[in-house]
């Protein structure tokens, strides 16, 4: 921080003062009682004292009693100017303005916020006002004592420590600053480099950075990509390996199958050989058999020929005997025929008698049939009567059962009607309950409809409000157009360029004017007002930051600009660009700076936010309204349903329903449902039973009708039989009245008696006829005749047979003779022994084959064996072809998958993947190490920096040693910068033992060192009054040296202690600017009361 300008009014003895401070050493001098300490107090007051505090009272104008008023402009950091304005007292005023260029200020804070902000920005260990523990009166702290020490409290710093500050901000500020500034350059450089490495790889929270610039990103991405490619290739390679394995397995399988096929083929060949051999053997055996058979047949034929000779002889003898027998039979036959002729004549007489007997018998047969018919008729009458009686009884029983069933049916119908009535009532109750439920829902829906209307009204109001606000903003925007986001970005860009360009010029300019003759010079630095330096005769140096205009009236004006030509060109270009692009926009928006434009944007943004909030509310309400509207639409079908229920319930007594509902209790809805279900179940059961009864009744009725019909038919049969009896009786006793007609029992009895009589007479007649027949024939003659005939016939047959046999025997003999001759001739050509030898040889060969093929030597290779062997060969061949087919498919698949090429690619990728994994591990280790190193560096530094005294003691001691020519050693400072003592004469001494002068010198060095560390201005209010000239010289040099880094403001009544003559302003000049030194003659600045 540095002070830029101080304006004071009515402050103690000072009526008015206006001081502009230089950037480096400012020596404000004047005689005693001029008001120097008032100016120092004004600085302290404007920075530290709340305007309403009573602590301002000592500063009230001595003369007028007016409220003291101070305006102080400070630059806290580059391009950050703050102007504090305070009027103390009852009409306290407090404002804090900000400017980025030191000229154009705008108010940022007012009232109590001013001190709050100031204390926050200064960080001097003073809490914000108003809070608990907040300071009353004039607040002080370690740093206010160091930087703004009052004149008489020069050694007060040695009695303070940071821990006593009311707020820890002072200690924190110092810790931060000392930590940064206390760094060894090498250490700092290492920390910076390490931090940079860590920042590359980790987020501020210590997590691994995922940014593209992260060292992990590239290798991780590459690894991911490689892994992905590898996965894809692995899948293909897996397929490849699988196919390879498949091919290997199939190759092996093929070999196995081919071997099996070969074995099967060999087996088949063996069996075929055996079969062939067997066939050959069979054939030869057949030949042998046939030869042997021929020999046997030949022998047999010769035997048969001999037998046939013998048989022919026998048959000749037999024929002769048959001829003799025939002759005898023919003689007997002739005799029998003669006797038979006599008998035939007697027989014709007997036959006449027999025909008479047959006529009698026919008459008796007729009578017996007639009696039989009557008996049957009588039995039918009896049967029909009994049947009629049985059916009548059955019909009576059916009538009784039918009446009983009809009674049961009537009872069930009554129950059924009762259940239906109960069910109808319960259904009405159910509808009633549903109607009441629907009614409740509809009432709620009506209420929702009302709410919906209210919501629409509310939506309308909010929409209108939002539209009005939008219109207002449109009007405002039209009146005060704001730049677009693009223009805004452009403005910021130009502003940034301008700042950068201006900063590039701010390199510091020092111009020394060495006049030959007295010359009047006017100077204007860094765009500030022109200062008249008056006539100068001696060399004079004028310094500025970035530009300077030196005017030699009537002679020349010289413009000196800092920075390179390029930097100046860029600055001018930036200024032109600002004027050309930015200023019209700012002007159109009615503002003069980007900050004001930002505030306008913020305001507009807030208004837009309000509109958006309203619109959001509207959307919310619209969503609610839509929800309710959908609910109302959903309710509409319920209204129709309720109306339908009302119509259905119109026929019911609602009081009765209510009463029934009351009976059902609170859970009527569920109870009525259960009850309806129960009644319905009963009703279903009753209806089912009734149906059964009805069916049963119908069946009974049907059965009764059928029985009635049967009864009628029985009655008809009985009447019909009765009528037949009557007709029969009437035909037998014509002229007899109906009353005299016989009963069916009498008829039956008569008929049975007549039948018995007829039977007896028939038997007699048959006996008579048989006697006639027997008497009319001569059985013996006939038998004799018959026997003679039969004998003749038999004899003739025997003769014929014997002749035929003889002929046949002759033929057979002839055939056998030929056969025997033929076979004898055939046998004569046959050689049996070679055939037997061949059979034996073939059998041996066959046995050998069987043995060769594992047979038992006895088994015969059958056709089935041959077929099995052929089938085995066929199956083996099919299996080989199947494996070959699979092998072809696998090879085909391998051709597609890439084979060797794929393996090569996979190997390449695996190598790359391993390499990347190694690299990733290495990068991880590398950056883990960087992080570990940074942690170790910062921990070491933190450990060192916590002890603030160690950081400060060194520089203070060095300077003090230099000042005192090594008389004193190091300053013993505690962690909170409390002073424990100083090392001198080989031991530690208390500060109190030092002389006043030495104490104030040590204090000043300490304060300067602190200010230097903080980069802050320091106020020295005439605090080296007890210092001897030699040490004062040292201080004068040291102040100039230190003021190159910080602003030092010295208030003194002895200008010569700090300034050389040339540095003093002439006569009535307010100030004189030298090389880094601004001398301000307070007599020309302060107006006293």
């Amino acid at each position: 921080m540095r002070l830029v300008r101080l304006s004071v009014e009515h402050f103690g003895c000072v009526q008015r003062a206006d001081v502009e401070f230089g950037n480096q050493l400012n020596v404000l001098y004047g005689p005693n009682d001029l008001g120097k300490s008032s100016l120092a107090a004004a600085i302290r007051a404007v920075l530290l004292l709340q305007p309403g505090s009573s602590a301002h009272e000592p500063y009230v104008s001595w003369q007028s009693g007016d409220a003291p008023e101070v305006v102080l402009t400070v630059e806290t950091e580059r391009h950050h100017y703050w102007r504090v304005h305070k009027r103390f007292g009852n009409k306290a005023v407090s404002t804090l303005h900000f400017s980025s260029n030191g000229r154009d200020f705008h108010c940022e804070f007012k009232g109590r916020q001013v001190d709050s902000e100031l204390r926050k920005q200064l960080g001097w260990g003073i809490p914000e006002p108003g809070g608990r523990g907040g300071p009353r009166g004039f607040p002080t702290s370690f740093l206010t004592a160091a930087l703004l020490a009052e004149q008489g409290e020069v050694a007060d710093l040695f009695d303070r420590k940071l821990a006593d500050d009311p707020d820890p901000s002072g200690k924190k500020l110092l810790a931060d600053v000392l930590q940064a500034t206390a760094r060894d350059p090498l250490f700092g450089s290492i920390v910076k480099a390490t931090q940079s490495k860590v920042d590359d790889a980790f987020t501020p929270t210590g997590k691994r950075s995922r940014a593209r610039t992260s060292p992990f990103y590239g290798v991780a991405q590459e690894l991911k990509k490689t892994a992905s490619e590898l996965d894809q290739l692995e899948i293909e390679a897996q397929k490849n390996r699988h196919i390879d394995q498949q091919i290997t397995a199939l190759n092996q399988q093929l070999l196995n199958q081919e071997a099996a096929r070969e074995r099967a083929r060999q087996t088949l060949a063996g069996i075929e050989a055996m079969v062939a051999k067997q066939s050959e053997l069979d054939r030869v055996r057949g030949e042998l058999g046939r030869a042997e058979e021929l020999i046997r047949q030949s022998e047999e034929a010769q035997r048969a020929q001999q037998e046939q000779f013998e048989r022919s002889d026998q048959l000749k003898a037999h024929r002769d005997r048959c001829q003799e027998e025939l002759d005898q039979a023919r003689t007997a036959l002739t005799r029998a025929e003669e006797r038979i002729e006599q008998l035939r004549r007697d027989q014709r007489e007997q036959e006449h008698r027999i025909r008479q007997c047959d006529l009698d018998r026919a008459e008796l047969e007729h009578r017996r049939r007639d009696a039989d018919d009557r008996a049957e008729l009588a039995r039918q009458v009896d049967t029909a009567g009994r049947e009629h009686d049985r059916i009548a009884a059955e019909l009576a029983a059916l009538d009784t059962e039918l009446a009983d069933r009809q009674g049961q049916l009537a009872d069930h119908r009554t129950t059924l009607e009762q259940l239906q009535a109960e069910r109808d009532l319960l259904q009405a109750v159910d509808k009633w309950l549903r109607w009441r439920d629907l009614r409740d829902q509809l009432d709620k829906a009506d209420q929702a409809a009302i709410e919906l209307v209210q919501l629409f009204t509310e939506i309308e109001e909010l929409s209108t409000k939002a539209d009005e606000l939008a219109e207002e903003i449109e009007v405002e925007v039209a009146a005060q157009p704001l730049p677009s986001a693009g223009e805004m970005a452009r403005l910021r860009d130009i502003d940034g360029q301008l700042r950068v360009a201006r900063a590039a010029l701010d390199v510091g300019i020092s111009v020394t004017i060495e006049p030959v003759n007295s010359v009047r010079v006017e100077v204007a630095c860094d765009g500030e007002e022109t200062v008249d330096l008056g006539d100068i005769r001696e060399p004079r140096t004028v310094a500025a930051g970035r530009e300077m205009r030196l005017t030699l009236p009537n002679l020349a004006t010289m413009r000196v600009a800092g920075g390179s030509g390029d930097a100046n060109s860029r600055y001018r270009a930036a200024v032109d660009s600002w004027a050309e692009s930015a200023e019209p926009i700012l002007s159109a928006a009615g503002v003069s700076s980007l900050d004001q434009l930002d505030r306008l944007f913020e305001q507009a943004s807030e208004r837009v936010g309000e509109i958006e909030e309203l619109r959001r509310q509207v959307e919310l309400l619209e969503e609610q309204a839509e929800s309710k509207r959908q609910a109302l639409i959903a309710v509409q079908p319920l209204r129709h349903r309720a109306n339908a229920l009302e119509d259905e319930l119109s026929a019911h007594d609602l009081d009765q329903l209510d009463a029934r509902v009351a009976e059902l209790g609170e859970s009527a809805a569920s109870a009525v449902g259960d009850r309806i279900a129960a009644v319905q179940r009963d009703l279903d059961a009753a209806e089912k039973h009734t149906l059964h009864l009805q069916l049963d009744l119908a069946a009974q009725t049907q059965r009764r009708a059928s029985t009635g019909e049967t009864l009628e038919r029985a009655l008809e049969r009985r009447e019909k039989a009765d009528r037949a009896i009557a007709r029969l009786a009437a035909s037998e006793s014509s002229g007899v009245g109906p009353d005299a007609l016989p009963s069916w029992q009498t008829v039956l009895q008569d008929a049975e008696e007549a039948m018995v009589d007829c039977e007896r007479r028939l038997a007699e007649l048959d006996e008579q006829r048989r006697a006639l027949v027997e008497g009319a024939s001569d059985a013996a003659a006939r038998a004799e005749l018959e026997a003679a005939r039969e004998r003749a016939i038999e004899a003739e047959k025997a003769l014929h047979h014997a002749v035929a046999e003889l002929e046949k025997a002759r033929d057979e003999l002839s055939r056998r003779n030929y056969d025997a001759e033929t076979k004898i001739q055939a046998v004569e050509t046959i050689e049996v022994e070679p055939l037997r030898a061949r059979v034996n040889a073939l059998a041996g060969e066959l046995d050998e084959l069987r043995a060769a093929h594992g047979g038992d030597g006895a088994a015969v290779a059958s056709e089935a064996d041959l077929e099995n062997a052929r089938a085995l060969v066929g199956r083996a061949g099919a299996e080989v072809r199947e494996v070959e087919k699979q092998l072809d498919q696998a090879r085909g698949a391998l051709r597609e998958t890439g084979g060797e090429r794929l393996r090569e690619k996979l190997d390449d990728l695996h190598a790359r993947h391993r390499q990347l994994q190694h690299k990733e591990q290495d990068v991880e280790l590398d950056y883990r190490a960087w992080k570990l190193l940074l942690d170790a560096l910062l921990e070491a530094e933190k450990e060192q920096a916590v002890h603030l005294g160690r950081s400060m003691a060194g520089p203070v001691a060095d300077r003090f040693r230099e000042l005192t020519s090594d008389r004193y050693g190091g300053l013993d400072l505690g962690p909170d910068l409390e002073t424990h003592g100083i090392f001198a004469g080989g031991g530690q001494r208390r500060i109190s033992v030092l002389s006043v002068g030495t104490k104030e010198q040590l204090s000043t060095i300490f304060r300067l060192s602190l200010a230097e560390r903080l980069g802050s201005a320091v106020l020295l209010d005439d605090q080296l009054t007890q210092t001897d000239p030699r040490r004062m010289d040292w201080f004068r040099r040291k102040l100039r040296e230190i003021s190159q880094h910080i602003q030092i403001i010295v208030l003194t009544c002895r200008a010569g202690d700090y300034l050389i003559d040339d540095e003093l302003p002439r006569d009535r000049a307010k100030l004189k600017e030298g090389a880094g030194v601004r001398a301000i003659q307070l007599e020309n600045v302060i107006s006293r009361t």
Partner: protein
Amino acid sequence: MTGVEEQDVALKLLHTADWHLGKRFPSFDELDQKLLTRARLEVIDSILGQAQRHTVHAVLCAGDLFEDPDPGREWWEGLARRFSTVADWPETRPVFLLPGNHDPLTRKSVYWPEHPFRRALPPWVHVVDRAGFEYPLSAEAVVYAEPCQSAAGQDDLALALPDREPGDERIRIGLVHGQTTDIPGHQSNFPIARDAAQRRGLDYLAIGDTHSYRRVSPDAHVPVVYPGAPEATAFDESDAGHVVVVFFRRGRRRPHIKPIRVGRWQWEEHVCRDLDALRQLAARQDLKQRVVRLHLDLDATLGEKAEIDRLERELKGTDASPGQVGVLVVERDIRLDTSDDNWLDGLPDILVSVVKRLKAIERDDPDTARRALAHLHTLVRSRSGAPAVTSRKRT
């Protein structure tokens, strides 16, 4: 020509294979990948130059000329351009391009008759784009070729070549791609029977697939030759980088075979087990055309590690300066010895305390702590001037 008089030569052939145009080298840095990938195309100029120099009658390219069947326009276009722009190439000198298992003849391959690559080729470049390919080079010589038509196969393409007809006295050249069955550890892909050339009555069987130059059965009556890849593709290809020129003398069946180096890059591997070995490697001046895989398997103090890093930078090169080695791949297995504290002399106390902290951590997490110490050592060294390398204390 060694021992072979020009006028006595009946037939001269240049036999090459396995160009693998379009092959990627994922294990290398991006720039090195490009270098090695481009080298495949650049070596074609040398091959064609050798053909010109030896005035061969034909050039036989025995498969795997492209890494993939359709490797991308830049590769086939680049090859076609090289053929088209080669100077003074006689129309009568045919070049035969044979599809191999990497670039089999399929509908999607560059060799397919409809592919634009085919239209871009000059008329003297012949693609073996059908089975039973036959090309009479002259009345005395004929080329028979069978292309690979898939990436993998079990057919012996050499045995698919026709037999020598009775009375056929021409020089019969076979051209196929595949693996002779005597390569240990390899599953045969497109196997080639050892006696296939003899069985088919060939005088020379030009084959491709193996990347090192190799004569299969050197004493066999009919030479069967792998010329190898003209530029190596891996470190285990011991004798890559050649083409073969085949000379047939009049009246003699058995040709003279001469391998000729055409490759630019030589691949080699080094394992350095101490700093001296690395220093010796760094001192070599012949590494510009080498592809080197360097395995650092050694113990090193922090000071030695700094030197190792420096030597590695010199070998590899930086963004600002080229390295001594053409292409370098480094595998590090450096075990740091942090016991040497000499480098701490003169360091600020705070840095010494940092070193102590890291050494305390070294007990629990040695790798990270040692690497952190190495980082610190490097930073200190770079900011305070390079201290002398302190050798590791040897016991």
